[in-house]
């Protein structure tokens, strides 16, 4: 994976003043500088890089500088120092012409309050980016229609923005950003203005679109759950600084300081943890050609009442219970005859949240399998529940 965006120690002062620069170099805090000078520091220390095709989430409370930071990535806010490399080019050094071209072709933005033009129709909004590029009417209309279809708004092309619900409006915002086919999508709290149900739909939609298009996405949010659900990697910002960067599980399990610990305390772990985090390798397994005796012995020695049966390449065949096995020995049945199929399976990417109903309903452990039905691990009911209660995650 190649690095797409690289930001190097990039302070952004809302007011340019050499005094502030000195204070920052002396590592004074944002609060102190504000008290002494009345100037606001937007972002004082942020170095990070985003890989191509990655969904990179920047999370922080309001006022932490995250919006300032993302606005620097397309120079809506002009950084006062530092460098931002996109595909190796320092975009801070771009002149007006290069900058316009960069915004037209490489990076587009989705806004918190949508920023849609209510004097234009859905189609008129989506084609905007192509229009300013100077694309011919027919061509841009065609692309705009396809993009609108892609976000599930077919049939709404000629409606005005005010006629759409909030969720639909943000779909238009997303379509507008996607229409120019940029490499990079900058999303500034795009779902914060939506109600929770719609927000969930939009998050799934985004993941869906991302799995198809593989854009490089920088996503801003103040919602921990959203950050951990969407982010391939997450950066946590506090007081205009990035305090931790990592994959969601790392931040969740090893918060680098008390602030982050506090931040992630409220998180609904079931939405972050996936099956792969709480499953374990089964201690006992039987294969079809082992036969009944082995199965009974395995269960006895492990003190369990059921065991999964696998075939070639650990392909999952079914489950046998101790009662059935003992009965089968008496009636001289074979192992294959008594295999049951009434267990649940799960994908290793499945969220624990979605496993809870299965865990409650099932008598047996949940089998985690890949697309070829290869058994990867099992999840016992108790670990689904304990996974929710912090710490005990292995």
């Amino acid at each position, binding site marked *: 994976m190649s690095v797409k965006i690289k930001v190097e120690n990039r302070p952004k002062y809302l007011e340019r003043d050499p005094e502030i620069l000195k204070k920052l170099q002396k590592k004074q805090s944002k609060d102190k500088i504000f008290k002494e000078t009345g100037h606001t520091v937007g972002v004082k220390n942020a170095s990070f890089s985003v890989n191509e095709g990655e969904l990179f989430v920047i999370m922080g409370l309001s006022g932490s500088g995250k919006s300032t930071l993302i606005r620097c990535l397309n120079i809506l806010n002009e950084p006062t120092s530092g460098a931002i490399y996109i595909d190796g080019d320092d975009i801070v050094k771009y002149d007006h012409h290069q900058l316009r071209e960069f915004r037209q072709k490489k990076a587009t*933005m989705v806004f918190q309050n949508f920023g849609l*033009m209510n004097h234009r129709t859905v189609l008129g909004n989506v084609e*905007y980016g192509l229009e300013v590029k100077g694309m011919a009417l027919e061509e841009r209309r065609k692309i705009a229609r396809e993009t609108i279809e892609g976000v599930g708004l077919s049939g709404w092309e000629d409606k005005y923005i005010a006629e759409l619900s909030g969720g639909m409006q943000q779909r238009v915002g997303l379509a507008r950003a996607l229409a120019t086919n940029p490499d990079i999508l900058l999303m500034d709290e795009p779902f914060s203005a939506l109600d929770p149900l719609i927000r969930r739909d939009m998050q799934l939609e985004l993941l869906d679109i991302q799995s198809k298009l593989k854009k490089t996405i920088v996503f801003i949010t103040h919602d921990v759950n959203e950050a951990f659900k969407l982010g391939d990697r997450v950066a946590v910002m506090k007081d205009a600084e990035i305090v931790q960067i990592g994959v969601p599980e790392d931040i969740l399990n090893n918060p680098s300081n008390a602030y982050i610990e506090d931040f992630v305390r409220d998180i609904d772990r079931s939405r972050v943890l996936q099956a792969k985090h709480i499953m374990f390798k089964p201690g006992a397994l039987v294969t079809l050609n082992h036969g009944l005796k082995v199965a009974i012995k395995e269960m006895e020695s492990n003190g369990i009442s059921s065991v999964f049966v696998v075939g070639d390449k650990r392909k999952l065949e079914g489950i046998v219970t101790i009662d059935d096995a003992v009965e089968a020995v008496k009636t001289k049945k074979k192992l294959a005859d008594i295999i049951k199929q009434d267990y649940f399976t799960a994908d290793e990417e499945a969220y624990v949240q979605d496993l809870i109903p299965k865990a409650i309903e099932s008598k047996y452990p949940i089998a985690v399998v890949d697309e070829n039905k290869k058994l990867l691990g099992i999840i016992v009911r108790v670990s689904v529940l304990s996974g929710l209660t912090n710490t005990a995650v292995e």
Partner: protein
Amino acid sequence: MIKMFFDFPETWQLNLGQHVGNFVRWLVQNYAPFFDAIKGGILWFLLQTRDLFLWIPWPIVLIFIFILGWKIKNWKSGVTFTVLIFTIGIMGLWDEMMLTLSIVLVSVIIACIIGVPLGIMVAYNERMESIVRPILDGMQTMPSFVYLIPAIMLFGLGSVPAVFATVIYSTPPAIRLTTLAINGVSKEMVEAGHAFGSTTWQILTKIELPQAFPTIMMGINQTTMMAMAMVVISSMIGARGLGLNVLQAINRIDIGLGFEAGISIVILAITIDRITQSIANKYKFPK
């Protein structure tokens, strides 16, 4: 001794009026060709419009007003406007109305050509605003008759100085409301425009002006109303039309003539106001 605090000392004098007078005279003497050119331009425009207005057969005007009222509001408004304008006609003031209308139209067009771009420039430039705003305040509070004097000095008597005075008097609302409208465009919308790589011109024409249009129309509506008022006043310097009839009525103390001309002005003003306002409302996009 104590007396000097009661009567303002006569020896302290600043002859501001004299200086302004001298300045205007200096303008007239040194820039006569410039003002003649303006005069020629306005006169040509005015004559074309006036000839057209006087040439159009009256039934066509009435039908046009009906259709306009019907399209932008409803058929009832169309009928009302038509009946009102018809009333002016049967009072024998049709040609006067058309003359007044032609001066108003020419003045409003000139006022918009000056006012809207100036309003945009003021919206884009804070320093410009600090210069233009006090001038606009002055232009609006200055008694309108005062404009007639430099108008005569620069352009003589007739319709051209009337247009000049009317333009000066009626441009401020066009400037003000344009500035207000452009400044009122949602910041995020403009930011989105930038984020997609628009040029300043594209942001102005594709985002700000369409967004500002209804408010700018309100400004034009006010400009039209003020032009209407000023055209009547400027009959004092020789503008023909309904105002001249009022002036004659005053001179002859003729209540009948005064009433007819007065009511015609009111009817014309109300009709223009309703029509321009409806246009502004019609182009308001759903918020």
